[in-house]
């Protein structure tokens, strides 16, 4: 789950990391009031789950409150990478002497949290990694001992020659590491970490991604979810306990298991079609999930055919068949349905489907070919 910048800033602040003052606004009037309270020059920043906000015109400087309101009215409602901006952050514009990068991820290779720092701050870290990888310093942290003081200071001295500044940066790294574990993050980054002309070191922008598996034990973090930043069908799917990712094609896919769901999408493409979605109904045998899945797929007007690909293991074929029959009784389908079903309770499933007027295939390739042809017809 992605957090907005203003939410990530709040977490950093709570863990003792210096962050400039500021507040979030949903209307131009609110933006004006915040700018007034802050005094001086402010920055108005779109709060949206997308990179490249500056380039898209979602970050603007304002010399006085009326200008902040004007910027806010332009940015609110703006679309950045397909996402509508509903909130802006208004913060004091900070004078910057230098910009660095500090981030923590869980590294799959070393199976440990890795602290990354770079003196090339303010730009996308992937870009730095591509063009000047020698400017990124990495340290795998042993989670049993955490970030040791000399490790943090050693990295901080790569960023700052001034020892006082390096000590501030090392403290920020230690606090970021503490926050990382405390909130259950899979990524936490400060970019830029700025040094001001008067020698202070502070976090000007923050990004935190939470591991979805942590949300159960962190209800206060789960409550930060902004559903307006997601496709409505994806919100609906999550509430129904389904894993769903919306795509642009015309073949709706309903599959059991994530790997098979991906392979099914790939096979749709292999036969010249385009998948409309990724959808995993999971391992359980609940007809209800099939009904929910079909409801979500059929709300997409681009779907021209629906493909079921079920390999019964724990998932029972007869449960899926019952789900299909129930769903099509509740809301008759307007697009063709191609069903591939094999494995556990296959015979019973075929009987249920045949009785309801559907036919079922057992071969995956044949089913995908048919679905692609139907979608194109």
């Amino acid at each position, binding site marked *: 789950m992605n957090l907005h910048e203003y939410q990530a800033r709040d977490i950093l602040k709570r863990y003792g990391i210096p962050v400039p003052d500021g507040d979030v606004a949903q209307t131009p009037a609110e933006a004006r009031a915040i700018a007034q309270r802050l005094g001086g020059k402010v920055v108005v920043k779109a709060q949206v789950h997308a990179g490249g906000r500056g380039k898209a015109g979602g970050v603007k400087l304002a010399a006085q409150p009326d200008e902040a309101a004007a910027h806010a009215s332009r940015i609110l409602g703006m679309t950045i990478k397909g996402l509508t901006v509903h909130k802006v952050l208004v913060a004091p514009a900070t004078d910057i002497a230098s910009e660095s990068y500090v981030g923590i991820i869980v590294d799959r290779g070393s199976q440990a949290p890795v602290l990354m720092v770079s003196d090339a701050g303010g730009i996308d870290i992937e870009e730095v990694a591509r063009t000047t990888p020698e400017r990124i310093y990495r340290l795998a942290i042993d989670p049993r001992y955490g970030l040791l003081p000399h490790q943090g200071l050693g990295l901080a001295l790569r960023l700052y020659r001034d020892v006082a500044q390096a000590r501030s940066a090392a403290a920020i790294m230690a606090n970021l590491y503490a926050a990382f574990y405390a909130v259950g993050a899979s990524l936490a980054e400060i970019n830029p970490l700025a040094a001001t002309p008067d020698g202070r070191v502070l976090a000007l922008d923050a990004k935190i991604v939470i591991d979805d598996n942590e949300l159960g*034990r962190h209800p206060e973090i789960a409550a930060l979810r902004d559903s307006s930043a997601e496709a409505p069908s994806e919100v609906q799917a999550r509430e129904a306990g389904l894993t769903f990712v919306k795509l642009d094609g015309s073949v709706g896919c309903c599959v059991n298991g994530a790997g*098979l769901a991906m392979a099914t999408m*790939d096979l749709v493409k292999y036969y010249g079609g385009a998948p409309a979605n990724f959808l995993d109904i999971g391992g359980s045998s609940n007809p209800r999930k099939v009904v929910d899945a079909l409801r979500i797929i059929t709300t997409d007007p681009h779907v021209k055919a629906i493909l079921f690909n079920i390999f019964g293991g724990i998932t029972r074929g007869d449960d899926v068949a019952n789900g299909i029959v129930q769903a099509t009784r509740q809301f008759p389908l307007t697009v063709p349905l191609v069903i591939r079903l094999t494995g556990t309770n296959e015979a019973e499933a075929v009987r249920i489907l045949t009785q309801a007027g559907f036919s079922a295939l057992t071969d995956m390739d044949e089913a995908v070919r048919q679905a692609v042809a139907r979608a194109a017809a």
Partner: protein
Amino acid sequence: MSVFIDLETRLLVQGITGRDGSFHTRQMLAYGTKVVAGVTPGKGGQRFDGVVPVFDTVADGARETRANTTVIYVPAALAASAIYEAADAGIGLIVCITEGIPVLDMTKVLPYLHERGARLIGPNCPGLISPTQSKVGIIPGNICTPGRVGVVSRSGTLTYEIVHQLSTNGFGQSTCIGIGGDPLIGTNFIHCLAAFQADPATDAVVMIGEIGGTDEQQAAEFVQQGMTKPVIGFIAGQTAPPGRRMGHAGAIISGSAGTAAEKMAAFARAGISVMKRPADVVPLLRERV
């Protein structure tokens, strides 16, 4: 022969009286797996289905029954603790089926296991099966046949699909291993490839990867440098968009890294026969064995 599990496997089930644990314990017993013990705290002294003794702790169960392998079906919130408990009881092979363990928990679990010399398969995996000898986990026994092809995969049902194609075309399996769909797992492709290379009962390996991470690329290097047996590879997620998690917690293209194209190219460079679709497995195997 086979890898990791065989006729010597003496299995303990953590969470044996739970919904999933009891269902799959019956399946494993029916398959012929030697299920020697179960653990559910507070239910020590009972017998599961009148057959399998239930203990309060893994330590009790392992001591009384000489269990050498455990399979974990407990809910995500308790699963990391169940892994620690199994390692403390001296169990050498720990198979964790549970999905949803926080990655940060795994950053602490994995070094703990490493220090105690225990092997973890999973989490978030279907387990493994050595056909006719032992089944540990949830892979349906009826789709597998005994034979000489090793299968290792990050997926569940996609593995069943490919194993089904193998079985119906005369390619039986030595062992099928689901290593799990999480970003941090105990046993990776390389561990399994090395075991299959060393196993005299395995002639060829089918490796089923997916988008996210670089495990497949490292496995490709291992195949190039350390394997003489033919390897057939598949990567799921060729049509997956970047930055989106495709069901498995580990199946995500981060920035431009971890794409299917990159992994398939690494396979091809290493001399691995690359399947474009699941149905290619049998023709490619026929070419190589």
